[in-house]
């Protein structure tokens, strides 16, 4: 019968590969959660139920924090530059190395803990070298999980408080990542159709505007293509050439809906600054006939 620790170690490595490979943030978070939950089970003997519960709750909360930062949707990782097969091969190689080397002899814990820990550390190297904040947070999480597995392998069973401290550390890392992901990066990935909403004075507003963006930033944004034609790669925060602004919560500006035709006031109302920015750079339409009035 296969040991639980071996199965958990394989799950840890699979979760790690899933966490560093895809571009969809939701899949990345699921991979991280799988790795974090399984990492608590790579031990022999299994930790107490209290310790396992703490680690699982910590993993779930960490995943939720990242998920919440992603707006339950479209935050994207930069993804792997070499693809899932190469990442899997690298993880498998590190796993094999971890099965063979003996820096500590005899090992106080299962050898698969050392192998899976080494695999996670290997997977974390490339994300840690990048500048994508979300992917960097994934790398830090994987490194932490790898280090915890190393502790299990080299020092043996750990007390429940250590598991609790590790869970708190994972939550802290996830929280820090979710707080440091640039807001513009999050917002630029979340779009909702606003075809039926139009700012007064701007007859041809862009078809879509970012949903979570401040009004000023929304006005400055360029029209985006539809989701189907949007490029699949993630825009790194450093690549976004938008006017960055201080993240100060701005009170939501009331969106003016298009008035009914019967209630349209045909007066020369000056355009709001936002609407002026939002308006496409086209030749302005000629003013409607006002019946000879100035």
């Amino acid at each position, binding site marked *: 019968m296969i040991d639980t620790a071996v199965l958990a170690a394989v799950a840890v490595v699979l979760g790690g590969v899933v966490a560093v490979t895809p571009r969809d943030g939701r899949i990345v978070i699921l991979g991280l959660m799988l790795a974090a939950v399984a990492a608590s089970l790579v031990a022999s003997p299994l930790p107490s139920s*209290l*310790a396992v519960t703490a680690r699982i709750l910590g993993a779930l909360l960490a995943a939720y924090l990242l998920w919440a930062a992603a707006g339950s949707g479209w935050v994207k990782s930069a993804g792997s530059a070499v693809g899932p097969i190469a990442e899997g091969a690298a993880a498998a190689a590190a796993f094999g190395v971890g099965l063979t080397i*003996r*820096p*500590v*002899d*005899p090992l*106080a814990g299962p050898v698969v803990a050392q192998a899976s820990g080494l695999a996670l550390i290997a997977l*974390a190297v490339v994300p*840690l070298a990048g*500048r994508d*904040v979300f992917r*960097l*947070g994934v*790398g*830090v999480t994987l*490194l*932490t999980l790898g*280090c*915890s597995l*190393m*502790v299990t392998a*080299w*020092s043996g069973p*750990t*007390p*429940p*408080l*250590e*598991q*609790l*401290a*590790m869970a*708190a*550390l994972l939550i*802290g*890392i996830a*929280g*820090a*990542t979710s*707080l*440091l*992901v*640039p*807001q*513009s990066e999050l917002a630029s990935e979340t779009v909702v159709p606003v075809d039926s909403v139009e700012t007064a004075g701007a007859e041809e507003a862009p078809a879509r505007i970012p949903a979570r963006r401040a009004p000023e930033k929304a006005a400055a944004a360029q029209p985006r293509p539809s989701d189907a034609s949007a490029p699949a790669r993630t825009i790194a*925060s*450093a690549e976004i050439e938008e006017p*960055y*602004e*201080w*993240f100060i*919560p701005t009170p939501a500006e009331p969106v003016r809906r298009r008035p009914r035709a019967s209630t349209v006031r045909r007066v020369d109302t000056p355009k709001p600054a936002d609407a002026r920015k939002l308006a496409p750079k086209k030749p302005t339409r000629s003013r409607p006939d006002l019946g000879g009035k100035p």
Partner: protein
Amino acid sequence: MTLIAFLLICIFGMLLGLLAQPFAMLSRLVAVGSLVAALTAALLLNPNDTATLGEVQLATTRFVCFFLTALTASCLMLCIVGLVTGWPERLAPAALATFAGVGFAISATDPTVALIAAAAATAPAALVASRIRSTPLGTTVGVAELRTLALVVGASVLAAVTVLNTNWNADDPTFMIAIAFVALAAAVAVRSGAVPFHVPAALLSRSGEGLGLVLSLVWIPTGFGLVALSWGATIYGVPGDWLDRAVVAVQLVAVATLVLGAVGAMLHDEIEEVVAYSIVQDTGFILLALTARDADAAQPARLWLLAFILAKSALVAWAATASWAFGSSNLGDLRGWLRRSPILGLALVGIVLATLGWPGSDVFEARATLVRLGLPDSVHFLGTAAILLSLAYYLRLMAIGLLTPSAVVRGAAGDRPRWHPAGAEAAGQEVLAAEVAPVAVAKSAEVAPVAVATAVADPASQHADDEGPVQSHRRHVSFGHQLRVAWRLNRPLQASLLVLGIAAVAAAIAFGGFGAAGASQSGITLDQAAGPIAIPSAIDNGGEPTPEASAGASPAITFPLPPSPTPAATAATAAPSASSSASPLPSGTSGD
């Protein structure tokens, strides 16, 4: 149980503070209330408290109590300053989370738990840095924060494993200890912004964080450094070529930090940057304490950490107050600030005293001891050089303050108590409107609106009006009215007095006041856990036997001996209270 109460207050205070963030007034109320509660719990901590949680014993010492009290008190004082000068968003919840982690770390008897908790305590720095996350600067700072967190986690775990494990499969058993030492020193250096790694600290100082700087640059490095220093004299005191080379590398970083940090503080013109580089310079002494690897360096290092927390918190508060009072943080605009705000000048003098002391004072001797034990004899002059360089940039700040005031300074309010007629009238109208309305409405629903309108529009006319509820109420509250007007008009004075108070407390701590000197004699719990190797618990607890020692029982955690101890190391363990000359690495020669 007192320790558990402190930890719970910190955790719940942090959660409540985060939940209350969308509501400005409520978040301030929750933050100040939580910090007051945490400070009360820290003051009531029992120095001999023990509790077992998750099969690990948590225990307190006098120093643990003092350290946690100093952290919470400095945070509370800064938040009160922030109520006047500008509320530091998210500082209080982040600080409370950090204090909880530090509390776990310095009270745990298990090294792995202590180091993991210390690493977790560094994560809340992101809460403060997140305010600028949508700027290019914020992205850079965020990347630096996460990488620092990765280094701290890796180094902590490696150090914990190295300390616990004796079965390394290596020819030279000190090799792994050297790697762990380098990793831990690198984590301390990067987290505290030592000179090769000072760029994130400098960037953060340019981000307008104000009071929030203190969390990333002072409190978190201090807490992590305290845990990292806890077994330096025992585990890393083992002689070995690899370890000696590692110590030399850390000494180079420390020297560069001591010198170049002060140079950076002298060359920059923004007051926040001066403060940041000043903090960076003084973190060099934490690295020196690491390189000392001597039991004699433990007490000065702890005292220095206490003085560092209070003095640098006061310096950050001073900078925030000066920037707020004069509306500029540029030293060119701040010409003549000392003439306008002499109380802030006094506060700066207190901060200098708390940081440098004078010959014979506790903090001065602590710095001198760390330089003597942490550096080779040939570079001991760097201790004096560091003091002189520090004095140079402090004197520069003073000299700029004595120049002819610039237009910015002339236009500022300054420290002098004021009763400006125009300001008094404006403030008086607000107060009068707030006080008169309820009474007037209660007494006469018909007369009140007219009376209130008259009172607010022209307070002077009330002197001629001897009739009516408004006038009678005005006479009744006139003294309180005047006090409130004076309170509103003298905000700069209040802020300056608060900063002066913080500086006075810092100076008192630096000179061993409030029992700081006695508390620094006792180590943290981890020191006592390392007792079986070199430092018996009875000696490390300020000469008072611990409950375990008095009961004849061994400590809860028995540390393994370092691998292959040499005869010299064995001799050192046999004579734990011996001077540094009997230690495995003689003082001043550790890096040679």
